[in-house]
């Protein structure tokens, strides 16, 4: 069980945070249709987390690469490798991609959560990577935690349910 610690770092909308500090816990709070993706190298004990908002950029905005799934994944991999992580050792997990509004038909254009999930999986596949575990879809909000000390990844919901990925 992860409690709120002073060394918990909030990875906000469209942000990426990387850490090698064993005292740090990375967290994507309140994920709805957004997706939190964590990647952890258990040998070097280095981890990163991205808070993906949308599947793809529309070219209008010069945004943070972590905002869009198609640019966030390569950006995170690049930064992790630059800091000594081995791409092939990474344990990758994700949470979110929910359809908070039940009235949106599943798989429709408005189902951004599903589109985000697909875009993350496709971006990982381009790097010959896949998700090790996930807690996605449904219609609940989630918070994703990654403990840098041991790579433990946990998801917590509004109803205080906690699961370890």
């Amino acid at each position, binding site marked *: 069980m992860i409690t709120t610690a002073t060394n918990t770092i909030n990875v906000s909308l469209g942000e990426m945070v990387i850490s090698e500090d064993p005292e740090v816990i990375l967290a994507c709070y*309140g*994920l*709805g249709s*957004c997706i939190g993706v964590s990647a952890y190298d258990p040998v070097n004990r280095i981890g990163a987390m991205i808070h993906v*908002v*949308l599947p793809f950029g529309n070219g209008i905005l010069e945004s943070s690469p972590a905002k869009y799934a198609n640019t966030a994944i390569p950006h995170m991999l690049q930064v992790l490798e630059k800091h000594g992580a081995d791409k092939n050792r990474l344990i990758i997990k994700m949470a979110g991609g929910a359809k*908070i509004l039940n009235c949106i038909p599943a798989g429709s254009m408005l189902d951004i959560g599903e589109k985000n999930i697909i875009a993350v999986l496709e971006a990982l596949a381009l790097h010959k990577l896949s998700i090790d575990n996930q807690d996605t879809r449904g219609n609940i909000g*989630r*918070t994703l935690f990654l403990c840098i000390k041991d790579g433990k990844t946990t998801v917590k919901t*509004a109803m205080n349910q906690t699961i370890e990925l």
Partner: protein
Amino acid sequence: MRTLSQCEQHVIENIIKKGVTDAVNGLSEMIGKDIHLSELIIKTIPAKDIAVTLGGPDTTIIGVYLAFSGPANGHIILAHHPNVAFKLLDSLVGIKNTGIHDLSDLEQSALGEVGNITGTFFLNAVANALDIIIHPSPPVVLIDLAGAILDIAMVDILQEEEDVYMVETTYIINEYNTKGTFLIMLNNSFFNLPFIVK
């Protein structure tokens, strides 16, 4: 978002103030309690900071969400701490607080009506001031993390902007000595309207 002239800003703020005052009066009338408008903040903030207005992204809230469309598009969230929402339910339909739980049809319907009244009072004021027609969506009642509820609006607004133009209203329900938040998030279309008040 296009840059607004000082005059346009002034017009927008006056329209919003009128709309929010009408909304809070409508809510007061509906629940039969005195409500005091304690704070009205109109500002542009980075999207990543918006959840702070609802107590942080991992705060559990009961929110009533409405979208509105027409010449002006945007999102409205009426947010309460669960205990406050249950007090509202008690006064509206006599349902006692039994702790955080999935909301029954009756609870959803009553809270939906609260959002409906508040949202439409606000939108009517805006529509009348600008002589336009605005269509609100049916209200959706959600009990979830604030960040997750805000995502509904953010995925729309962040397709075109990095910042959010928002109206944060805090009101005190006197008898309960507690507060709620009425959050309005406007997308780009709103700022392309001719701000000529009839």
